[in-house]
């Protein structure tokens, strides 16, 4: 066996240990990126071999918590891919308006920037008060940040630019309050958002949604796990409900692809048939 093969055995054993001990199952994550993050954690922990992590993580809950955090990629931004918001406004908002009350699920919400972007879109469409948003992730630390809704001021310029590209007509600065080097999202946006821990690998559906957004999370899963999540989503949508994925994610090769039709290929908007 060469080094790479040995390391892949070590990773297999590590993932098995974690699944048995803590119930988190990372076997079906894309391996190349998972390995980079495991190696990153290994170096931070001043250890040499991947297998040295196994006894440490089995016995040290605190260390496992930080391991979990370092596996989760929390990179996100407000109004990422502004065109998606243009399309949501054109295609999904009119659909939401036909209901007296709606539910939206933002799965893999990381630190919440996307959730607030959706809340702003709803607010400008006059829908904020009749929508319940569920924002879920497996990373509790991210969820706490999301709930606080406090972000660094350094990115506001970029977000403002994104906001302007969405074609929304308000002013982005109306939605946050600046204080020193951070901004606080306006409390009115948070009113109808519930932040909760939900694991797409193992947890079940919790209701029928009009819209599910799950962007740049499935890209970390292999096709098998993606298939599981797509079935979960198809069970969690109302008739004709919408699913919006990240721009590099697609449902077309999954077993449920025939349940959806593609509304916009570039913006990865799908609708349950």
């Amino acid at each position: 066996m060469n080094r790479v093969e040995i390391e892949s055995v070590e990773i297999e054993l590590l993932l098995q240990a974690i699944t048995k001990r803590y119930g988190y199952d990372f076997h079906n994550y894309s391996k190349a990126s998972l390995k980079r993050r495991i190696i990153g954690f290994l170096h931070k922990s001043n250890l040499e071999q991947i297998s040295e992590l196994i006894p440490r993580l089995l016995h040290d809950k605190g260390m496992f918590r930080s391991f979990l955090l370092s596996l989760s990629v929390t990179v996100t931004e407000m109004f990422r891919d502004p065109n998606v918001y243009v399309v949501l406004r054109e295609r999904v908002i009119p659909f939401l308006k036909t209901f007296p009350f709606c539910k939206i699920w933002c799965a893999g919400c990381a630190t919440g920037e996307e959730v607030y972007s959706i809340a702003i879109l709803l607010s400008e469409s006059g829908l904020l008060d009749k929508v319940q948003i569920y924002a879920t992730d497996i990373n509790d630390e991210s969820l706490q940040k999301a709930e606080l809704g406090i972000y660094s001021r350094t990115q506001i310029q970029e977000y403002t630019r994104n906001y302007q590209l969405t074609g929304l007509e308000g002013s982005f600065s109306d939605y946050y309050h600046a204080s020193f080097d951070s901004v606080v999202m306006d409390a009115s946006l948070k009113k109808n958002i519930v932040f909760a821990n939900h694991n797409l690998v193992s947890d079940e559906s919790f209701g029928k949604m009009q819209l599910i957004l799950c962007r740049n999370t499935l890209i970390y899963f292999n096709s098998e796990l993606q298939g599981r999540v797509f079935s979960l989503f198809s069970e969690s949508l109302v008739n004709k409900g919408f699913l919006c994925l990240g721009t590099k994610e697609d449902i077309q090769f999954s077993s449920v692809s025939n349940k959806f039709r593609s509304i916009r290929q570039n913006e990865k908007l799908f609708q349950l048939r």
Partner: protein
Amino acid sequence: MEKCQERQHRIRAVVIGASAGGAKALSEIFSRLSSDFPAAILVVNHLHPHSKTMQMVDYLGHRCKLRMKAADDKETIKPGTIYLAPANYHLLVEADLSLSLTIDEKVNFSRPSIDVLFETAAEAYQDELIGIVLTGGSKDGAAGLKKISDFGGRVIVQDPKTAEAVIMPQSALRECEDAQVMSLARIGDFLRDAVQVEPLAP
């Protein structure tokens, strides 16, 4: 019959990293490759996060005979195809020789990062890989090139004297002392020869 020449490893893939001045340098190399080039080529050319990947695909596609496309998540790598990392995504090679995209943190201030592609390709292809660092103004690619060399791959750096931006080739040479230094024209010819498959014995 035993081959008397020094046995050459089959080359299955070429990975190339470029930054400032990259588009021109890449087209100069690609224009020298014929349509039956038998290895896959994976490219990270630093792009602005909002730039249109397809513009670069079209620009380079018009200047070479090989199939050129933006890399897709989970696609199987095919020989004779050039894959370009899309703007704002890292490009990684999986052990089963498929591609992955991620939005992980920037590496060396870059996404896509050359190091991320090179390091994962080194593990997946080991000694069946050629790594090339071209013109650019950052040190991205240096560590990855070293890893390719450590895994038995062949490593090439554009001659800094011919590069539009010298920092990247210089950093790569500092990190990876066994790299061969070549002009762009020479790199094109080298690739043509290195991937030559010997005809099967009858």
